[in-house]
């Protein structure tokens, strides 16, 4: 069921990774694009992330990891979301994620994994076209 109004997103850094350049850029780009974005800061556990996502009623969660611990943390977030019956929340991720792991993450629900250097506009467009397909199609026409 597609919503209307501003898109609500939660961005989070799971685990101990301190590299937050990328996620902060995404945060800024999504806000500049008119989305409502909550960013948890560093060192969030999967359960804190899922709790925040449900409390804040977000439509998507973006996770970032550059420390090689993506599989543990991303899969845990996906599992807990399903456990809470919130598996309609869109999942996406970014960071240094080896190609061989991308397929595995796709299986647990991460539609898109963005490597460093991805154009910010692409992330904005992807989220819009998935979460607001009608209005983004309309926007393209004008």
């Amino acid at each position, binding site marked *: 069921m597609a919503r209307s109004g501003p898109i609500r997103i939660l961005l989070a850094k799971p685990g101990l990774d*301190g590299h937050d*350049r990328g996620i*902060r*850029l995404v945060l800024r780009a999504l806000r500049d694009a008119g989305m409502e974005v909550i960013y948890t800061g560093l060192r969030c556990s999967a359960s804190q992330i899922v709790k925040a996502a449900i409390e804040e009623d977000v439509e998507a969660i973006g996770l970032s990891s550059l420390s*090689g611990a993506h599989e*543990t943390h991303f899969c845990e977030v996906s599992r807990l979301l399903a456990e809470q019956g919130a598996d309609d929340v869109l999942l996406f991720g970014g960071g*240094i994620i080896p*190609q061989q792991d991308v397929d595995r993450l796709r299986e647990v629900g991460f539609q898109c994994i963005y490597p460093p250097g991805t154009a910010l506009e692409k992330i904005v467009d992807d989220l819009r076209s998935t979460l607001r397909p009608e209005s983004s199609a309309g926007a393209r026409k004008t």
Partner: protein
Amino acid sequence: MIRKGKILSHDGTDPSRWQEECWKPFVAGHPERAEDFQSASGIPIDPLYFIDPADPGPGEFPFTRGIHPSMYRGKLWTMRQYAGFSSPAETNVRFRYLLQQGQTGISVAFDLPTQIGFDSDDRQARGEVGRVGVPINTLDDFDELLDEIPIDSVSISMTINSTAPLLLALLVALARRREIDPARLRGTVQNDILKEFIARGTQRYPLEASLKLVVDVIEYCIEELTSFYPISISGYHIREAGSTAIQEVAFTLANGITYMEACRDRGLDLVAVGQRLSFFFNSHNQFMEEIAKFRAARRMWADICRNRFGIEDDRACQLRFHTQTGGSTLQAMEPANNIVRVTIQALAAILGGTQSLHTNSWDEALSLPSEDAARLALRTQQIIAMESGVTDTADPLGGSPFIEELTDRIEAEASAIIEEIDNRGGTLSAIKDGFIRNAIEQSAYESQLASDSGETRAVGTDQGGEIPEAPFQVDATIEETRHDQLAHYRLERDARTAEAALMRVEETARQGGNLISVMVEALEANCTLGEVSATLAAVFGEVQDHG
């Protein structure tokens, strides 16, 4: 027209002031690598070329042209490749391999739990053990990591900050176990907590308590480890977080000022402190600007030491630094192109006068480096050192109008930023009020937009190609193995001795005393890094990042 100058005339006439006062006395005690240097075509190469013989040369305050009179004619930089992954035993194999290949120092990468102070079996360590570096929780781990490596002759550099006091204590404990006088230990602990708050994110304790621990390490090293550098004030990560070259210099030196002030407040002799500080910079692709950046940083730091802190001793005003090529410049697409990027960046660091260098491996945009790629990165340095001839005269680009202009501009603009930080009440205030982070983030955003728009796109990345598979994967079973090892370790030790040692750490922390000696005792009593860190957290509190 600029008349070019030479320092030494080959018929022995026309000796310059620098040659007589600085170079000659130095090389008398530190012979150069060769009697004579010449180009491949046989042109003689002098130790220095200059525009105005009155200008300070290398080895002379303010050290714009280098900290040593003979620079690489005397001694090449230390080739120090950062390595660490999976387990102490596996990392030890990589270290020995790198030493065998001609590396001249060791540089330890620790995993994130170790960097923040969690043992491998801590709940917070899940998924992170052995990923970005090696897990070290106990004296036995550390012994295994450095097995058969002569720690009294090979210098050991450790990228460690929140837990720097503990890793230093482990090194001291290991020296004692091997019956080596700790005073003979050579190396560096990064121990730069301010840039963790600014850009790297492994901080654990509140800012003031963290700064106290930094000064504990400096104080201990001045008193006990007379050949060890207790801090490496790092611009590297500030740059990786997105700053410009100018901001990198400004924020790093501003942090340096804060450490000097904290040492002064502790009552330490600033001459002794100044002689023991080291720095760590990044090197990106903008070749000329990077070279000028290193030159400007040296001149600025010398000026800060003399005019802000009143240090008369020249050696205490020298900015000595390590360089690593720019991780964020590496591209995942067509990754072999990274070899060329790394070469340019390494050459900039060398033309900028670095004391040690890590060259990134071409595959690091994909994963931790494979052994082949790590060797190639080291070979890149060796080729520059042995085959290019840029090492045969000090500061070969000094005097170039473009380089000198860039050096002056970076100095002026970075100095203006430091002044702004002063006006905000210093670095601690500028960290707390978000000034530094916001400035870096703004630069990162601008550079991302420039890349998105195609204005600065990296070569080979716009064809929409596939990203290759990662060549290196950390063994995922390491975490479980570590759990068993730690459980065994705790079971085997004398619980009462360990408990008592932790109590002494706690008491010392509460009383505000220097913690290093009691940490050495605790680690020798087989306490773990996680246990000691948790003890400190109970006293100092812990910080939380809220974005």
